[in-house]
C-alpha cells in the first residue's frame, strides 16, 4: 500500500511562513491499495489537496474518521467525490453513547456551520457506525479500537498482504498513568499498534507543554516514542503537530529525539506530501 500525508497539523489549520515545510493543513491521510482501493483517514483540511489525485471515474471511496473534532472533519465538505452522483462514499466513524454517526455528522453538515446539508449531497453516501474489531474494505483488512481521547475516538490498523499501517492521530495514552508506559495490557492503543510497519501517532506537545495540557487528549513526542517502543513498531511518524510549532521547532524536537542511540525504530516527522510505500 502507499500512504500519503495530506494534512499533518493538529487542532487548527496553520498556514504561514513558519509552517511551510511540515504543512499547515489538518489531519488527512490517503491510503492506496495494490488494487487501487482508496481509503481516506480523517477529513481535515488536507483533504482539499487529496482531491487533485482522485481519478474522475472513481466508483467507491472509504473515509475512516477517528473522531468528530473539527480539525478532523473540517475538510469533508470539500471532498470532491461527495459531489459526484455516481460515486459511492462510505464513511465510518464512531457513534456516541446516544447518537449514531449520521446524527453526529449532521450537526456539522447543516446551517449555520455549513451551507450544504448531508442529505443534499449528490453522491451515494453511506454512513457506518464503525464496528470495534475487524472488518474489510475491499482489499484492506481494517481493525478499529477505542483510544484515550476526549469523546468517542478510535484508532485504525490497516493491513494489506503482510504490511500494517496504524493511524492514531489523537491519543493520550499517558493520561493518568503514574509511570508511562505501563504494561502493554494497561496501555491504550497497544494491541492496535503492536508490530506495525508504520505508526502515525499524535506527537503534539513537548513534555512541559503536556504538563500544562494533560487531559486535552494528546501526547508529548516522548510519549509517542515510548508508546512506539512498547508496541515494537518499525517506523514512527510524528503527527498532529501543534499549531504553535514552527518548522524549525519541529526540526529541533526531531533532532533531540533522534539523538537517542537506542531508538529501535526509524523516526520521521510527518510532512505534508510525504509518501510511504509498505510492502
Amino acid at each position, binding site marked *: 500500500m502507499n500512504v500519503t500525508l495530506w494534512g499533518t497539523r493538529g487542532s487548527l489549520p496553520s498556514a504561514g511562513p513558519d509552517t511551510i515545510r511540515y504543512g499547515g493543513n489538518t489531519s488527512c491521510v490517503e491510503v492506496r491499495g495494490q488494487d487501487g482501493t482508496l481509503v481516506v483517514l480523517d477529513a481535515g483540511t488536507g483533504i482539499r489537496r487529496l482531491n487533485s489525485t482522485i481519478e474522475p471515474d472513481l466508483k467507491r471511496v472509504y473515509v475512516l474518521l477517528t473522531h468528530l473534532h473539527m480539525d478532523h472533519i473540517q475538510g469533508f465538505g470539500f471532498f470532491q467525490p461527495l459531489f459526484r452522483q455516481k460515486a459511492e462514499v462510505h464513511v465510518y466513524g*464512531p*457513534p456516541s*453513547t446516544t447518537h449514531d454517526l449520521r446524527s453526529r455528522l449532521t450537526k456539522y453538515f447543516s446551517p449555520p456551520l455549513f451551507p450544504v446539508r448531508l442529505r443534499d449531497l449528490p453522491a451515494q453516501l453511506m454512513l457506518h*457506525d464503525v464496528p*470495534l474489531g475487524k472488518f474489510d474494505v475491499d482489499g484492506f483488512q481494517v481493525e478499529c*479500537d*477505542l*483510544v*484515550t481521547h476526549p469523546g*468517542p475516538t478510535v484508532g485504525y490498523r490497516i493491513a494489506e498482504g503482510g504490511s500494517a499501517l496504524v493511524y492514531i492521530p489523537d491519543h493520550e495514552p499517558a*493520561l*493518568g*498513568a*503514574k509511570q508511562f508506559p505501563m504494561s*502493554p*495490557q*494497561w*496501555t*491504550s*492503543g*497497544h*494491541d492496535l499498534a503492536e508490530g506495525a510497519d508504520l505508526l502515525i501517532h499524535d506527537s503534539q506537545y513537548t513534555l512541559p507543554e503536556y504538563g500544562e495540557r494533560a487531559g486535552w487528549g494528546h501526547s508529548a513526542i516522548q510519549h509517542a516514542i515510548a508508546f512506539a517502543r512498547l508496541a515494537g513498531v518499525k517506523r514512527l511518524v510524528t503527527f498532529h503537530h501543534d499549531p504553535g510549532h514552527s518548522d524549525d521547532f519541529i526540526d529541533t524536537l526531531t533532532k533531540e529525539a533522534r539523538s537517542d542511540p537506542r531508538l529501535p525504530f526509524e523516526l520521521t516527522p510527518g510532512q505534508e506530501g510525504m509518501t510511504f510505500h509498505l510492502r
Partner: protein
Amino acid sequence: MRQRDIEIILMRQLASYLVVPIFVVDTKGTVLFYNEPAEALIGRQFDEAGEMPMADWTTVLNPRDERDMPLPLESQPLVIALRRHVPAYRRVRITGLDGVARSLEVVAFPLQGQGNRMLGAAALFWESDKK
C-alpha cells in the same frame, strides 16, 4: 495477554487517584485492580495479591450479611452489577486478607462501554464505622 478495553484502563487510572476504595472486575468477576485505599480494607497490596478470580475473592474475603451470615453470591452487590447489569447497594461484612473483620457499605455498578459492551463492574466501599 490482551490489552484491556479503554474504559477499563480509564477506570483503573481514575481509581488510582481517588481516596474512595474501589474494586474493578472483568465480566467474569476476576479482580483486575483495586486502589490503595481499598488495599487497607482488603488487607493486602494489589501488587502482592494480583488478579483474583471471583471464586477466590468471594471465598477468601468471606462476605457476610449484617448478622454475620454467609452472603450468597446473588446477593453481593458486585455480582448483581455483573449479572443483572444494574447498580446495587448493601452493607456487607468481610474478613480481610490480614484476618481483620470489617463492616462495609458497598455500591457496585456495571461498566458498560461504547456500543453497550459489557466490560465488567466496579465497586466503591466505605467502612461503616468510619463514616
